[in-house]
């Protein structure tokens, strides 16, 4: 159950996934397929932003859906949006992976160079910039990274993002402010280039 933050009054009671979840609990393959089509891209992208590893991100996305199949019959509509719960599961699974990683590695930042980098000059520049941004994101503490990912990359509302991370809206705002400050510092060079190129 979500922690009562006192800031969930803005959540709509209508859940666009509610009907699908009921059908999934009854073993409806078509409903499962629709839910996968709707949310798999979000889960993979979120996990990849958190872990910067495509294979692990795919594993996390799969684990999220396995939990959906397992717990669909227990779902109580109106408590929180199903999508919010899915994000929460994904984030917690990512935290687990990061914890395990920390036990194995030291402070290494994964090499994010894309093997399929386009060969044009602009393509190389864009790919390098993307890798640099993702590298900066990986340097943030996991909770700040999650906040930035949910609010700025997944464009969730602050209330839904806070609910997904099981924190208050104030705590979410603090994570966002610190995360953005960190990114501004890490990406100062790129930001200056961007301003210069715009004249």
């Amino acid at each position, binding site marked *: 159950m979500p922690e009562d933050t006192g800031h969930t009054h803005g959540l709509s009671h209508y859940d666009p996934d509610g009907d699908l979840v009921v059908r999934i609990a009854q073993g409806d393959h078509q409903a499962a397929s629709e839910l996968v089509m709707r949310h*798999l891209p979000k889960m993979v992208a979120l996990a990849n932003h958190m872990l910067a590893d495509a294979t692990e991100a795919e594993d996390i996305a799969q684990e999220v859906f*396995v939990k959906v199949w397992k717990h669909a019959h227990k779902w109580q509509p109106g408590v929180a949006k199903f999508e919010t719960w899915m994000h929460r599961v994904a984030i917690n699974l990512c935290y687990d992976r990061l914890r395990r990683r920390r036990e194995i590695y030291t402070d290494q930042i994964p090499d994010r160079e894309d093997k399929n980098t386009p060969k044009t000059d602009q393509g190389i520049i864009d790919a390098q910039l993307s890798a640099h941004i993702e590298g900066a994101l990986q340097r943030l503490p996991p909770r700040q990274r999650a906040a930035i990912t949910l609010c700025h990359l997944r464009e969730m509302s*602050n209330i839904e993002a806070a609910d997904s991370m099981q924190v208050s809206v104030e705590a979410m705002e603090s994570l966002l*402010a610190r995360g953005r400050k960190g990114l501004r510092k890490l990406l100062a060079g*790129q930001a200056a280039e961007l301003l210069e190129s715009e004249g």
Partner: protein
Amino acid sequence: MSTLMTRKGFEKYTQIYGSSLEHWPDSIRDAAGHFQQRHPADANRILQEERPLDQLLTQTPVLKASARLQARVMSTFPAAQHQSEHKKFAITSWLINGILMQNNAIPAWSIILTVMLVSGFVGGYSGYAHTLNQTGATEIIADAFGAEDSAFLTEETST
């Protein structure tokens, strides 16, 4: 009704939610808009400072979900299992309802079904136990596949 937003407040929220007011929460967007109208130069300067980071964030690579992954995820969906469990439960509750819930009268068909089920279980179990006891089947199977001088191996090598 929106409360007045100060310059400090506008700056604080820009550093939290970024340079695009559309992405700010509904609860503060109106107040921010009013501040922008009252102090356009200040507001634009504050937003301008934050804009490069937002532009950079749009360049963050997004991993796509492949068709292979979709198939992999769908292969974990246990539809058949759920349905068969549902059917088993339905049969059980049908029997229980038949026996217990029919206004104190126990219908003949439910008694017959119950007797058939129970005798099936009992008969099956005793037959299994009897077969093993009679022939020592477990030992024979173990000999055939485990021991080198078993009948199975002897027959194989002699042909």
